[in-house]
């Protein structure tokens, strides 16, 4: 007994050190499991408030690009609208037909230099943002909502090891999974594409319809390079349309049919 007391007395700092490291690793492991990073995340009033305050200082540096992006999106949507009204004389507006609702939000903390990047946005449950909603901007997919508080939410960026997004080739229906290897924030990797898919450099990759978080056909990027063997493709590198280093305003997608779809899946 005395020896144990002596041992603790002698190594008390080391034991404390080990204890603190165990707690830290507990937090790390928890943060890696999706939806369980309850304690250490920035979706709370204090950190969110601070980040929100400071982002307004830095906002002006990206204002020019943000305006350009908005203007381009407007032009694109206007063209689309022009095509429709030429064909139809009545526009049917029925809220029952609306599948997705979009909530506008602002990125208040952007990360793209870590291995597992998590962003913070300035909308939370008070604005209808909930866990597992897709986040996009006009140029492509940004990520998935991971944690929410009343006024803030954290978003699992596509530049994260835990984000797996269903994506497909625009020209045919072969689909794969989008992941990130942690190297370059401009490129992501596409896995599990069938050898029959017949891909080429420059092919456009869009979101697949398999996911209930994202509507189909959202632009993601183009194929930059790939290696082909007899059996499968490997190292398909996708250069993203979205500049993840320069994010301003984003849209959170609320899929109104989500519960219905999930219910169906549960019954299987």
């Amino acid at each position, binding site marked *: 007994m005395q020896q144990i007391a002596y041992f603790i007395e002698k190594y*008390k*700092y*080391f034991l*404390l*050190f080990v204890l*603190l*490291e165990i*707690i*830290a*690793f*507990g*937090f*790390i*492991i*928890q*943060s*890696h499991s999706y939806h369980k*990073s309850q304690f*250490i*995340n*920035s979706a*709370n009033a204090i*950190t969110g408030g*601070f*980040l929100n305050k*400071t982002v307004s200082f*830095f906002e002006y540096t990206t204002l020019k690009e943000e305006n350009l992006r908005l203007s381009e999106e407007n032009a694109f949507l206007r063209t689309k609208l022009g095509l429709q009204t030429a064909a139809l004389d009545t526009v049917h507006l029925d809220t029952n037909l609306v599948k997705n609702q979009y909530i506008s939000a602002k990125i208040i*903390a*952007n*990360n*793209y*230099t*870590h*291995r*597992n990047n*998590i*962003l*913070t946005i300035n909308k939370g449950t008070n604005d209808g943002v909930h866990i597992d909603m897709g986040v996009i901007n006009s140029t492509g997919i940004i990520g998935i909502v991971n944690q929410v508080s009343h006024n803030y939410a*954290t978003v699992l960026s596509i530049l994260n090891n835990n984000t797996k997004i269903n994506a497909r080739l625009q020209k045919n229906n072969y689909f794969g999974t989008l992941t990130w290897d*942690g*190297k370059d*924030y401009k490129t992501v990797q596409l896995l599990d594409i069938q050898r029959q898919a017949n891909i080429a450099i420059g092919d456009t990759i869009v979101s697949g319809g398999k996911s209930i978080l994202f509507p189909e056909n959202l632009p993601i990027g183009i194929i930059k390079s790939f290696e082909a063997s007899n059996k499968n493709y490997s190292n398909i590198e996708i250069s993203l349309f979205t500049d993840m*280093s320069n994010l301003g305003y984003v849209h959170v997608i609320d899929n109104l049919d989500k519960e219905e779809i999930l219910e169906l899946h549960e019954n299987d």
Partner: protein
Amino acid sequence: MTRETLIIGFRFVLLLLIQTLILNRIHLFGFLNPNAYLLFIFLYPVETKRANFLIVSFLFGLCIDLFSNTGGINAAATVATAYLTLPLIKIIWNSQDLDFQLFKLNNEPLPKTLVYISLLTLVHHFLLFSIEYWSLREFGTVLYKTFSTSVVTIFLCILGLYLTKKGASTHY
């Protein structure tokens, strides 16, 4: 509540805000965020209770994690660095003729301070990126990030150390 505790508390908040609100947004060359919050560890008085030091540095690292959504990697690396400070001081400065009560890093000669800060920063960054990537396949990336980020961090820390120095310039 002594003067010393107040200073430490003030430094805690100030460095936390500088790191999370300014330095974490730098993204130098597209990937590099200096971790000058290590200055908190370097400036922490050596003679105070070591247990307190470990716990405070754990909390400090955890606060950094809270802001940057990194789980607990900064906490883990910072505690390890804090644990290594005393042994390293004893090695670099000869422990026989060292008065811990009077020891202040910004009054020590530059070469030894530089070695001390560089070693601790390298250890901290290596741990930080190893835990973050957690894969042997990414070892090259970890080393690359460790060295490149360390250079900027060390520079900023030395700069911070001399800016907070109470010495010849403030005597008159």
